[in-house]
C-alpha cells in the first residue's frame, strides 16, 4: 500500500518530486565524492610512500659539512635504521632546455620557479619511482624527468634535455618520468631529475650548478621523528644550512593539495544537505496540508498516526535511497576524473576495504540525516485533530488556528489600501502579500543565503590567492617585479651588478634588495641550553612599511619580525626577546626584540625578517622593483633582465604569485567552479520547486486578481517581484556573511592547515562578488520564476478558482 501511495504521489507531483530527488542526489553525490577523493588521495600518497620509502627526517644543506660528525651522530642514535647523504646539483630553469628531435618543438624550463636538482638514484630508501612503481635507473646519457614537468612542458620520452654548465652543454635523452615522494607535491619548492652516476659526475664537474645535499634518516619508528629532529638540531657540528622536514610533513603536504578540493566538496555538500532538508520540510508540510482531509478521514477510521506517517515515509525512504545509490554511482565517475592527477603525481592506489567503506559511510550519513529529519517533520501528523481536519481542512490545532486568525486579522487591519499614496497598486499588493506570507516564503531567502555563501567563499579564496596583493601574505612587499638570485658562481657579484642596473634603470622605482641568511635560535623545547633551531631570516630594508604585519610592526635595528608559524613555535609575541646567532658559536648569540608578526606561506611558513643590509655571504638574494602603473611593462623588463644576467630569475610579481601558489589556486579554482555551478543551478532548481508549490497554493488568489481585472502580466509580475525580493534578501545576506564571517571561517581552517596563515583578509574582486554573483543569483531566481510563470499563460484561469 505504501508503495502504491508513493507511486501515485510521484505521478501527481512529478515536477516537485523530481526537483526534490535532484537536490538529494546532488547532496549524496558531493558527499560521496568528497569522501572518495580524500580516501583516494590518502591511499595514493600512502602507496607512493610505501614504494618510495622517503626518509623519516631530512635536513637540506648547502655548503661544506662534516661527514665524521654525521657518522658519530648516527652511531649514537639507537632509532636510526638507515641514513645517507644524498648529493644534488641544482640548475636554474633557464639553464635547462629541451628539444624534440626531428621537430622545431622545444624551449627551456625558465617558466618553472622551483629548484631543478639533478640526482642519482638512491639504493635503499628515498627512491625516485618510474611509472611502473620501480626505482628509475637511467643509463648514461639518459634522464628521468619529474612527472610535473611532463605535464607543464608537455615533455615526452625521447626528447633531448640540455643542461648548460660552465664547461658547455650536456645533452641527455628523456628516458621516462619519475614520481618523487619528497617533492611530489606541487607545494614543494624543488624537484628532482634522475641521471646516471657518470652524468651526475659530469654535471657536477661541469660547473654552473649549485651543489646541495640532503641528509636523510630512516628510523625504526616514524613516530620518533620529532624527538629525532630535536636531537639532530641540538648537535652543533651537524649540517643545517637549509630546511628540515619530517615524514609527517611530507605526508601532509602531499595530501594537502588534493585534500583541499575534497574538503571544499564536503563543505558544499554540507550546505546542500541543509538546503535539501529545508526543502523536505517545505514539501512534506505542504503535502500534509494538501492531504489533511484524507489524513483526518484515516484517523477517523482508526488508522494510527504512525501508519499514516508510514505512507509518506515509504516514498521518501525510496527517494533518499535512490538518491544515495545514484549519487554514489555518479560519484565514482567524478572521483575518477578528480583524482586523475593522483596516479600520475603519486601512485596508483590499491582498492582496499576503506575505498568502499568511506563513500558508503558518507552516503549512509546523508541517508540517516535525511530520514531522521523526515521522521521529525511527520510527527506533525500526530498533532492533527480529526474534527478540525475534516471540517476545516486544517492541520492546525484549535489554539494554532485561533492564533493564525488573530494574526491574519491584525495584518488585514493594517493594510489600509485606501490611503496608500506612493508606488503602484501591484507593488503595494506584492509587499502586503509578502508580509502576510513571510513564513511560507522564508525558504527562498534561506536557500539563496546559503547558495550565495557557497559560491562566494571559494571565489573569494581564489581571488585572494591570485591577487598580486597576496604577496603581503608571503612576507613580501607589494612590487611589480621580483628577482631571485639563488644559483651561480658568485651570487654577491651578481647581486651587486643587478642592483646597480636596476637602480639606474629609469623604468624602475623603489628597488630593494633582501638577503636570505640562516640564523639559529634556541628551540621551544630546549630554550636556552639544549638545541638550536635554524631560522631563515630575510635581511633588508623594511622602513618603507610595505610588508603587512598582523601584530606589531616592521623591525628596526636590533629587532626581528617573525612569521606567524615561527612566533607560534617559539611562543613569543611583539615585545618579547629571542636569542639568535649566526654560525655555531654560543658567544656570537645576540638578543633581539620581536617587533612584529606577519603571515607567510613561503618556506613552509617558517621565516623571519631583520632590518639591515647584507651584501655578501647570503644563501640567496631577492630584489624587488616597481614599474609604475603599467603592469604590462613588468614582463618585458623581466625578460630583458633574464637575458642579460646569468643566474637571475626575474618575474612579474603576478606570475610569481601564480606559480608559487599554483597548488592552492588550482584547487580553489576547481572548488570555485564546482561551487558556482552547483550553487547557481541549485538556487534556480529550488526556486522552481518552491514556486511550483507556492503557485499551486496561490492559484485561487491569482484567479481572483485575474477576474478583478489584473492582467496575467501583472499577476506574474507580483510573483516575480516577490521572488526578486526574497532572492535579493537572501543573496544580500549571503554576500555580507560570506565576506565577513566567511573570512573568519576560512581563516580558521587555513590556520589549522599549517600553511602559515593565521588570519585572512579576503582580497576580493568586488565586481565579481558584489555585482556579478549577486546579479547571477537574482537572475537564476528570476529564470526559475519565469519558467513557471510562462506555464501559467496556457492554463484556463477559471480552473484556478475551481481547484482552490
Amino acid at each position, binding site marked *: 500500500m505504501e508503495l502504491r501511495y508513493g507511486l501515485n504521489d510521484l505521478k501527481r507531483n512529478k515536477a516537485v518530486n523530481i526537483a526534490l530527488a535532484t537536490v538529494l542526489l546532488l547532496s549524496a553525490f558531493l558527499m560521496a565524492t568528497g569522501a572518495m577523493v580524500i580516501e583516494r588521495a590518502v591511499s595514493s600518497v600512502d602507496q607512493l610512500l610505501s614504494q618510495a620509502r622517503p626518509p623519516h627526517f631530512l635536513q637540506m644543506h648547502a655548503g661544506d659539512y662534516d661527514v665524521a660528525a654525521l657518522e658519530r651522530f648516527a652511531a649514537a642514535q639507537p632509532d636510526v635504521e638507515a641514513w645517507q647523504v644524498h648529493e644534488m646539483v641544482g640548475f636554474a630553469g633557464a639553464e635547462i632546455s629541451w628539444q624534440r628531435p626531428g621537430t622545431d618543438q622545444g624551449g627551456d624550463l625558465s617558466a618553472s620557479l622551483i629548484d631543478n636538482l639533478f640526482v642519482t638514484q638512491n639504493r635503499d630508501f628515498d627512491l625516485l619511482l618510474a611509472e611502473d612503481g620501480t626505482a628509475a635507473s637511467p643509463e648514461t646519457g639518459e634522464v628521468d624527468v619529474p612527472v610535473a614537468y611532463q605535464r607543464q612542458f608537455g615533455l615526452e620520452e625521447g626528447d633531448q634535455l640540455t643542461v648548460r654548465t660552465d664547461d658547455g652543454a650536456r645533452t641527455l635523452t628523456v628516458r621516462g618520468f619519475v614520481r618523487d615522494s619528497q617533492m611530489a607535491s606541487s607545494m614543494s619548492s624543488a624537484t628532482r631529475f634522475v641521471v646516471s652516476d657518470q652524468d651526475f659526475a659530469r654535471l657536477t664537474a661541469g660547473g654552473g650548478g649549485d651543489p646541495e645535499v640532503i641528509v636523510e634518516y630512516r628510523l625504526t619508528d616514524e613516530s620518533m621523528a620529532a624527538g629525532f629532529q630535536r636531537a639532530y638540531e641540538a648537535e652543533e657540528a651537524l649540517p643545517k644550512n637549509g630546511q628540515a622536514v619530517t615524514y609527517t610533513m611530507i605526508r601532509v603536504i602531499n595530501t594537502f593539495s588534493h585534500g583541499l578540493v575534497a574538503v571544499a566538496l564536503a563543505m558544499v555538500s554540507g550546505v546542500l544537505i541543509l538546503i535539501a532538508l529545508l526543502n523536505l520540510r517545505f514539501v512534506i508540510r505542504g503535502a500534509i496540508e494538501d492531504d489533511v482531509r484524507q489524513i483526518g478521514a484515516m484517523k477517523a477510521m482508526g488508522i494510527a498516526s504512525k501508519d499514516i506517517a508510514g505512507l509518506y515515509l515509504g516514498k521518501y525512504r525510496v527517494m533518499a535511497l535512490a538518491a544515495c545509490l545514484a549519487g554514489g554511482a555518479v560519484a565514482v565517475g567524478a572521483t575518477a576524473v578528480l583524482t586523475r592527477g593522483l596516479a600520475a603525481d603519486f601512485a596508483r592506489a590499491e582498492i582496499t576495504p576503506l575505498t568502499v567503506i568511506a563513500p558508503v559511510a558518507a552516503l549512509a550519513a546523508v541517508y540517516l540525516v535525511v530520514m531522521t529529519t523526515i521522521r521529525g517533520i511527520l510527527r506533525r501528523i500526530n498533532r492533527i485533530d480529526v474534527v478540525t481536519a475534516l471540517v476545516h481542512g486544517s492541520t492546525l490545532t484549535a489554539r494554532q488556528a485561533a492564533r493564525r486568525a488573530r494574526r491574519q486579522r491584525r495584518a488585514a487591519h493594517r493594510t489600509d489600501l485606501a490611503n496608500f499614496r506612493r508606488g503602484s497598486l501591484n507593488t503595494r*499588493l506584492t509587499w502586503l502579500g509578502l508580509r502576510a506570507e513571510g513564513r511560507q516564503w522564508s525558504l527562498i531567502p534561506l536557500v539563496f543565503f546559503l547558495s550565495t555563501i557557497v559560491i562566494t567563499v571559494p571565489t573569494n579564496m581564489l581571488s585572494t590567492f591570485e591577487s598580486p596583493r597576496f604577496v603581503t601574505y608571503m612576507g613580501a612587499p607589494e612590487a611589480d617585479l621580483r628577482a631571485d638570485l639563488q644559483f651561480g658562481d658568485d651570487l654577491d657579484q651578481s647581486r651587486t651588478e643587478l642592483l646597480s642596473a636596476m637602480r639606474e634603470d629609469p623604468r624602475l622605482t623603489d628597488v630593494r634588495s633582501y638577503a636570505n641568511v640562516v640564523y639559529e635560535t634556541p628551540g621551544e623545547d630546549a630554550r636556552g641550553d639544549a638545541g638550536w633551531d635554524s631560522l631563515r631570516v630575510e635581511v633588508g630594508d623594511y622602513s618603507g612599511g610595505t610588508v603587512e604585519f598582523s601584530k606589531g610592526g616592521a623591525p628596526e635595528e636590533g629587532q626581528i619580525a617573525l612569521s606567524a608559524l615561527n612566533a607560534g613555535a617559539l611562543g613569543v609575541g611583539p615585545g618579547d626577546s629571542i636569542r639568535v646567532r649566526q654560525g655555531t658559536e654560543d658567544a656570537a648569540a645576540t638578543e633581539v626584540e620581536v617587533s612584529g608578526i606577519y603571515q607567510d606561506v613561503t618556506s613552509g611558513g617558517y621565516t623571519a625578517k631583520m632590518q639591515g643590509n647584507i651584501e655578501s655571504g647570503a644563501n640567496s638574494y631577492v630584489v624587488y622593483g616597481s614599474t609604475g602603473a603599467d603592469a604590462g611593462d613588468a614582463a618585458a623588463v623581466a625578460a630583458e633582465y633574464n637575458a642579460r644576467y646569468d643566474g637571475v630569475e626575474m618575474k612579474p610579481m603576478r606570475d610569481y604569485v601564480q606559480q608559487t601558489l599554483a597548488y592552492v589556486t588550482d584547487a580553489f579554482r576547481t572548488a570555485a567552479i564546482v561551487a558556482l555551478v552547483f550553487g547557481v543551478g541549485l538556487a534556480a532548481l529550488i526556486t522552481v520547486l518552491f514556486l511550483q508549490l507556492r503557485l499551486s497554493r496561490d492559484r485561487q488568489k491569482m484567479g481572483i486578481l485575474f477576474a478583478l481585472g489584473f492582467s496575467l502580466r501583472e499577476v506574474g509580475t507580483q510573483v516575480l517581484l516577490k521572488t526578486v525580493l526574497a532572492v535579493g534578501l537572501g543573496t544580500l545576506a549571503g554576500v555580507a556573511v560570506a565576506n565577513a564571517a566567511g573570512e573568519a571561517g576560512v581563516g580558521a581552517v587555513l590556520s589549522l592547515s599549517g600553511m602559515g596563515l593565521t588570519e585572512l583578509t579576503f582580497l576580493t574582486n568586488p565586481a565579481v562578488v558584489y555585482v556579478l554573483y549577486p546579479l547571477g543569483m537574482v537572475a537564476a531566481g528570476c529564470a526559475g520564476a519565469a519558467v513557471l510563470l510562462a506555464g501559467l499563460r496556457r492554463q484556463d484561469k477559471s480552473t484556478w478558482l475551481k481547484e482552490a
Partner: protein
Amino acid sequence: MKPVTTPTSRAVLSARGIRKTFHATEPPAQVLDGIDLTIGHGEFVAVMGASGSGKSTLLYTISGMDRPTAGQVSVDGHELAGLDDTRMSALRLTTMGFVFQHPYFLANLDIHDNVLLPALKAAKTREQKEEAKARAARLLERFEIGHIGSHGITEVSGGQLQRASLCRALTTEPVILFADEPTGALNSSMTAEVMDALTQAHRGGTTLVMVTHDPACAARADRVLYLKDGSIVDEWKAGPWEADTTGDREAELLSWLRDLGF
C-alpha cells in the same frame, strides 16, 4: 435545431459558435458544442442545467476568463479574440464584474480594501481614487454591510461575505455582471439576502448573467437558458421579476424545467 437566444434590448454580449474542449482529459472532453447567445443591455439571464452540462464553462468563456476553442465572443462591442492580455484585463476591469460561488477574497486585506481593490485599480487620478472610495462606501451601506468594512474576512458570515463580493463586483460600475452559483454555498436565509442584493443591482441597470442550480433564484431572471451536453436546448422567457404579480412564476419555471428532465 438549436435556438439562437435573443435579447429583448440592445445586445451587450453576443457569442457565436462557441466550442470549448478540454484536452487534459483522455479522451478530450468537448464541454461546449457550438453555442450561439446574445444578451441584451439590462437583462437578467440565468443559466441552468444538470451538473457537467457546461454552465460554468459557458460563463467563464463568454466573460473572457477562458479562451474558447472555437467561436467568437463580443462584449460591449469588443471582440474578445482580438484582445491581448492587457486589453482583455482592462475590459474585464472596466466592463465586467464577477461573483463566485465561494466569495474568494484576499485574506490579507480587510473587507473594505477587498471591495475597493478593483476600483482602485481602475482609478487613474487622485480624484478617481477618492470617487472609488466614496463609491465603495456607498455600496457597503447600500447592501447593509458598512459596519463590517474593517473586519477581516474570517470575522463575518457567509451571506455578508457574498454581499461584500457583490459590492466588489459593482465598484467599477460594470456593464455586465457574471455570477457563478452565487448562493451555492449559502443557507436559505443567506440565499435570500444575496438574491435580494443581486436583484437590486440588476434593478440599478446592471446586466446580469447568473449560473444557478436553484429554480427559486433563477425565477428572478428575465430569461432562463437551459444547457444540456454543452448546448442550449431551450429558453424560458418571463419578463421582469418585479413586474410579475401572479406569484406562480417559480411554479411555471419548475414545470418547464421538469419537462426538460431537470
